[in-house]
């Protein structure tokens, strides 16, 4: 879902940058407030794992592939704000070092995958865990990971439509459709990894600080 340069029009990608920088600033501040020592290496390991996992495209439908986004995964382990930082870091390195995602589009990519894919995904997970899936954290993880990808793709489609790359009634259904399937992959991978973490190191799951 990494937007290259050229897809978005200047007003759209500039707005993306404004929103991304504002969010980064906020999340850095919040992360600093809640950062525990154990989170420091975990942020490194999470970033490394998500970066590597994003390289492993899996086929979906015919002739298309998907890959892990890792937003909900990062947020379940580190919380929404540190999770956002990790995802943004991965996206920035991918853009600058590996030419994966455009530099003008980096702001929008951070908004799509960091804000929608990670922070909103986290709050969906938290809400589900508190209500419908009180005894089944894994179900909350699975569903929120799935939805997070669909949401991110929908936001991406909106940006493309506003940039006049494609009409909304064409690009939105197309993006949503393929990302329903990619999101399923995300849900399965995220669920498996979280299940593994819960089994071996349950203390590495983020718990919202009291007060």
């Amino acid at each position: 879902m990494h937007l290259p340069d050229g897809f978005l029009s200047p007003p759209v990608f500039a707005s993306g940058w404004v929103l991304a920088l504002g969010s980064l600033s906020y999340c850095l501040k919040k992360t600093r407030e809640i950062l525990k020592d154990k989170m420091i290496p975990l942020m490194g390991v999470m970033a490394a794992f998500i970066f590597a996992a994003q390289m492993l495209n899996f086929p979906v439908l015919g002739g298309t592939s998907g890959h892990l986004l890792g937003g909900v995964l990062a947020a379940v382990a580190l919380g929404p704000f540190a999770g956002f930082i990790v995802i943004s870091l991965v996206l920035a390195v991918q853009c600058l070092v590996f030419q994966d995602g455009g530099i003008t589009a980096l702001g929008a990519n951070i908004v799509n995958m960091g804000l929608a894919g990670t922070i909103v995904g986290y709050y969906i997970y938290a809400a589900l865990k508190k209500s419908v899936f009180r005894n089944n954290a894994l179900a909350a993880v699975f569903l929120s990971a799935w939805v997070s990808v669909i949401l991110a793709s929908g936001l991406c489609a909106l940006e493309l439509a506003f940039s006049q790359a494609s009409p909304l009634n064409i690009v939105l259904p197309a993006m949503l459709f393929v990302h329903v399937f990619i999101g399923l992959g995300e849900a399965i991978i995220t669920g498996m990894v979280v299940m593994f973490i819960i089994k071996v190191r349950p203390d590495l799951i983020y718990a919202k600080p009291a007060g």
Partner: protein
Amino acid sequence: MKRKDIVIGLGLAAVLAVFSFLASSFPDGLERVAVDKDFIERSASLIKSPIPDYLFPGISHKKLAGSIAGIAGVLLVFGLGIGLSSLLRKRI
């Protein structure tokens, strides 16, 4: 996080990176939509990156170039992740 856990986590990431050449080469969701809905030609690259397309330059063997690029990325992102969070910790 104990050093052993860090090594295991990082090691797992490294293994994934090494085997990245096994990944599907089909276009991802966005690219597929861009091709199908005819806006892929808008794509441009405004900056020059050192390891474009996850292939380490100067290595002719494509799978090896990919694995090395993956390892480089894993180490870089790990280092930056630790560095950034350490910086944040110190500011308290």
